[in-house]
């Protein structure tokens, strides 16, 4: 059913992505592809993977932006994936019921056996979360790794989406954004996390954390311009005598 689940969904599983920390290594995108090409949405078809213009289905893409001018300018790496919105128009436009939002945890999914490949959901998503699989003739999207996060054969610490598990910089966090006391909700509150394109009214679940303000006066590392002596210069004793002798 493509009508949205009625009533407030208490649980809203999603991601928090820290744009201050992301180093743009694309490991999240690669591990996402690796996991999901064998997961519930498998395969994530590649077209001409070794050709001049390789193309294929990915659920996670890392953009890199330059923001601001001159000394105030900065480079920001920006991973982009499904935001599992509270008001996902991609679900309501679906004519077949293939797209749905789960009432129990807010995850937005596609039932590939019902999808007719009309592509309207991808038109309805401002975030580019949905990619059409030419080969399978159906739409595919991020599942928030439902086959990992509820997988009881995994150790509890591994029950996170592949992108979160692999991030070497810990720029990605997974949790329940519907619970104000969860670690991710506290992180969002503390760092003033924001919604992408809030003006669209889709109420994304995933939040992004802004780059931290740059420290003033210390260059990019905030270290002092000159190294201070680690210990006061000795004036007496054998080392003092040597110092005076060698300084002459």
């Amino acid at each position, binding site marked *: 059913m493509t009508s949205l689940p009625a009533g407030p969904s208490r649980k809203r599983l999603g991601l928090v992505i820290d744009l201050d920390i992301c180093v743009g290594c694309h490991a999240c995108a690669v591990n996402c592809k690796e996991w999901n090409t064998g997961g519930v949405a498998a395969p994530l078809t590649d077209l001409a993977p070794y050709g001049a213009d390789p193309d294929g289905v990915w659920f996670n893409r890392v953009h890199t932006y330059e923001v601001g001018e001159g000394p105030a300018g900065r480079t920001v790496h920006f991973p982009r994936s499904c935001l599992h919105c509270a008001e996902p128009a991609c*679900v309501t*436009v679906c*004519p077949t019921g293939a797209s749905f939002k789960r009432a129990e945890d807010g995850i937005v999914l596609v039932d590939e056996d019902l999808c*007719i490949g*009309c592509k309207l959901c991808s038109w309805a998503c*401002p975030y580019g979360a949905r*990619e059409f699989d030419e080969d399978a003739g159906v739409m595919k999207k991020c599942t928030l790794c439902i086959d990992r996060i509820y997988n009881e054969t995994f150790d509890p610490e591994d029950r996170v989406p592949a992108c979160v598990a692999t991030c070497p910089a810990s720029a990605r966090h997974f949790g329940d954004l519907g619970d104000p006391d969860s670690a991710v909700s506290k992180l969002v509150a503390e760092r003033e996390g924001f919604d992408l394109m809030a003006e669209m009214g889709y109420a994304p679940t995933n939040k992004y954390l*802004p780059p931290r303000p740059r420290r003033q006066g210390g260059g990019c590392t905030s270290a002092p311009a000159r190294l201070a002596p680690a210990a006061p210069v000795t004036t007496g004793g054998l080392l003092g005598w040597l110092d005076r002798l060698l300084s002459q």
Partner: protein
Amino acid sequence: MHPSLSVIFFTTASGAGYGLLALLGVLAPFGMVPADPLFGLVALVLALGAITAGLVSSLFHLGQRQRAWRAFSQWRSSWLSREGVAAVATYLPAGLFGIGWVFLGTVSKAAGLLAALGAVATVFCTSMIYRSLKPVPRWHNRWVVPNYLALGLMSGLLWLVLVLQIFGARPLPAATVPAAIALAAVLKLGYWRFIDAAPATSTAGSATGLGSFGTVRLLEAPHTSENYLLKEMGFSIARKHAAKLRRIAMVLGFGLPFMLSFVPFVASGWPAIAAALLAAILGTVGVFVERWLFFAEARHAVTLYYGRSEV
């Protein structure tokens, strides 16, 4: 947005077909078009033929055509599903209307009006598919629905005039055709004026949330060649071609049919038939070009992540 030929042909052909069906359904019960069964047969075959050709064409847009029947299920939330339901439902009164008119010699008012209602509802649903898409501001505005309805009515009317001329029937009241063309042209020009002047709804700054740090510029795309998003949503048309195509659509689709609609006042017989045929073809080609532009000029918000600064 990528101008997909199957969808453009669908909206153009079925728009004209539903326009013609709506006119027949309203005019025939009140004796404003000939009650001759042969006239009914030709006009309804033209209308239902265009509708059916359009609907079949729309199936070619699908990745899994054999499951198309599933699209009738989600009419509670989806305009595409509502369009499908309305399109199929319209065949019932249209079929009864046609059988009554052509085979039984009775023009049913109820079936005619229901068929007209279904035709208008279907075109309305088609337009609402686009109207409801917030990520495409050039579709998500109040001009889109009136444009679809007026252009469907205009192209349907041009084909009705042709059939009337071929049958040597009493023409429609004098100002009807030029007025319908003028209305459609004004709405199209209004739409273009609107999309050219409308302020941006989203920017690269709001898409990334980084606008407060300064101007956001794409430094590195996530991939080296075009992906689905760029092929489907990233289509862009050069400004000069858009301007030229708008003029072509305006002259072919509205200007020439408008002038040709005055031919029956000064001539009858073959010249009038030729003028009506030319007007119907030009009008339909003009709507086709206009519909291509409707897609090609539409900008999707996802392009903000790929270097566009605003949509």
